[in-house]
């Protein structure tokens, strides 16, 4: 799903025979597994458990056909969010002396804490990318719907994915229209006002589009009830996956807490 927001890739939804086995596992199982795995990893504190978590994540990514370099870059992108915390942690956690920069002292405990957090983040993100990130948004939506997530939330998600691209195009059109009469953004009132107009216009257009979409839906007999197509069935391969991932999760849990 992560690729749905990027440039358009291969457009087929049907599981082709050459699809890696992991991507043929029932979406619901993939979502549930990654959620349980994420909780387990976030609650773990032993370094070897966390390291295994990252290894499992890497293994799962290798099992998909995700481009490895791009995936790792994405994972590091998440780490970038927490980079300041990682840098600050050694200096703010009390514990054994590590080194000092002027009046600031770093501690080993803080360092270990930072490593722990980044391992957790990397492990969870890798698994999510491999298990959930490879789902098409519509598959993801359907799976959520069948996992009894409220229908309204599922449809908000599906509509967002559908119209994000349309909105983006609208934004670019407006942006080009701004550039055409030699507009150059500067740090002045004129620029702020112009950007204000841009976003207000985008909002107005989205609202109008929403009305037109609703009209079009009414014309096709919409009276407030959505019908989702497609059945999901759990087959033999899914059971194998449930068994293996279940055992892995239990093993990790036992290692951490027993």
């Amino acid at each position, binding site marked *: 799903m992560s690729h749905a927001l990027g440039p*358009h890739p291969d*457009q*087929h*939804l*049907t599981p082709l025979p050459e699809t890696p086995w992991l991507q043929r596992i029932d979406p619901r199982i993939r979502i549930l597994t990654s959620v349980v795995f994420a909780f387990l990893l976030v609650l773990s504190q032993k370094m070897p458990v966390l390291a295994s978590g990252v290894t499992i994540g890497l293994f799962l990514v290798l099992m998909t056909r995700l481009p490895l370099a791009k995936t790792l870059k994405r994972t590091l992108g998440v780490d970038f969010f927490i980079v300041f915390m990682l840098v600050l942690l050694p200096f703010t956690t009390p514990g054994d002396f590590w080194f000092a920069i002027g009046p600031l002292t770093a501690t080993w405990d803080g360092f270990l804490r930072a490593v722990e957090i980044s391992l957790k983040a990397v492990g969870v993100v890798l698994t999510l990318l491999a298990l959930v990130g490879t789902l*098409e*948004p*519509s598959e993801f*939506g359907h799976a959520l719907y069948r996992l009894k997530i409220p229908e309204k939330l599922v449809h908000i998600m*599906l*509509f967002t*994915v*559908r*119209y994000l*691209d*349309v909105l983006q195009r609208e934004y670019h059109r407006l942006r080009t229209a701004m550039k055409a009469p030699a507009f150059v953004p500067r740090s002045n009132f004129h620029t702020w006002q112009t950007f204000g107009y841009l976003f207000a216009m985008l909002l107005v257009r989205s609202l109008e*589009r929403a009305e*037109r*979409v609703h*009209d*079009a*839906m*009414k*014309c*096709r*007999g*919409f*009276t407030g*009830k959505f*019908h*989702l*197509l497609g059945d999901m069935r759990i087959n033999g391969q899914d059971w194998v996956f449930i068994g293996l991932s279940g055992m892995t999760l239990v093993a990790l849990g036992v290692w951490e807490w027993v």
Partner: protein
Amino acid sequence: MGVKESLFYLEDIHYHYRPGYPVLEGFHFELNPKDKVALTGPNGSGKTTLFHLMVGLITPNQGKIFAFGKQRHQEKDFLEVRAKTGILFQDSDDQLFCPTVREDIAFGPLNLGKSKEEADIIVMRTLEQLGMESYEYRITHHLSGGEKRLIALATVLAMEPEVLLLDEPTNGLDQAAEKRLLDILSALPQAMVLISHHFDFLDRIATRHTVLDKKGIDLC
């Protein structure tokens, strides 16, 4: 033909979006079976407005709308009209809102109470009719402009309408896509109203021509 036999019979329609700026004033319009009406007129003359009035998305300030032999007043009356009338919107992005082509085409039939199995059959049949069988599982927002327009038409045809209202169907299409759409449209048996500025396009399909001028009076 009269009120009873016409598919649509609009009598003395007045409509304005703002008081004092009428779009339609005393407009008459009649659509009979097998009619293929070309609707032309300058921007803002109320062509799209007329379509919206016909299926009850907006209500006239004055005048009577008869559709399929009955007078239609309120939202409830128009549900049946919408099931029998397919509108192709100007912007296909407004019309295709589902993640996949299959779900978009099945949306109408499912709303009309068809089962999932029946809907599946309709999806395949409609795609075959348009020669787009391989599109069933395509992601809607990845389609090109021409493909979107054809799939939007498929979503309309899937409801098996008796009347088609086409709002600038060839707008934004390249020549190849336009020709393909034209071939498909001329083969359709339904009564239709076409809004377009392409006169050669209208000449090939239309059997009758209605011009909306600023006052909204039927000239032909």
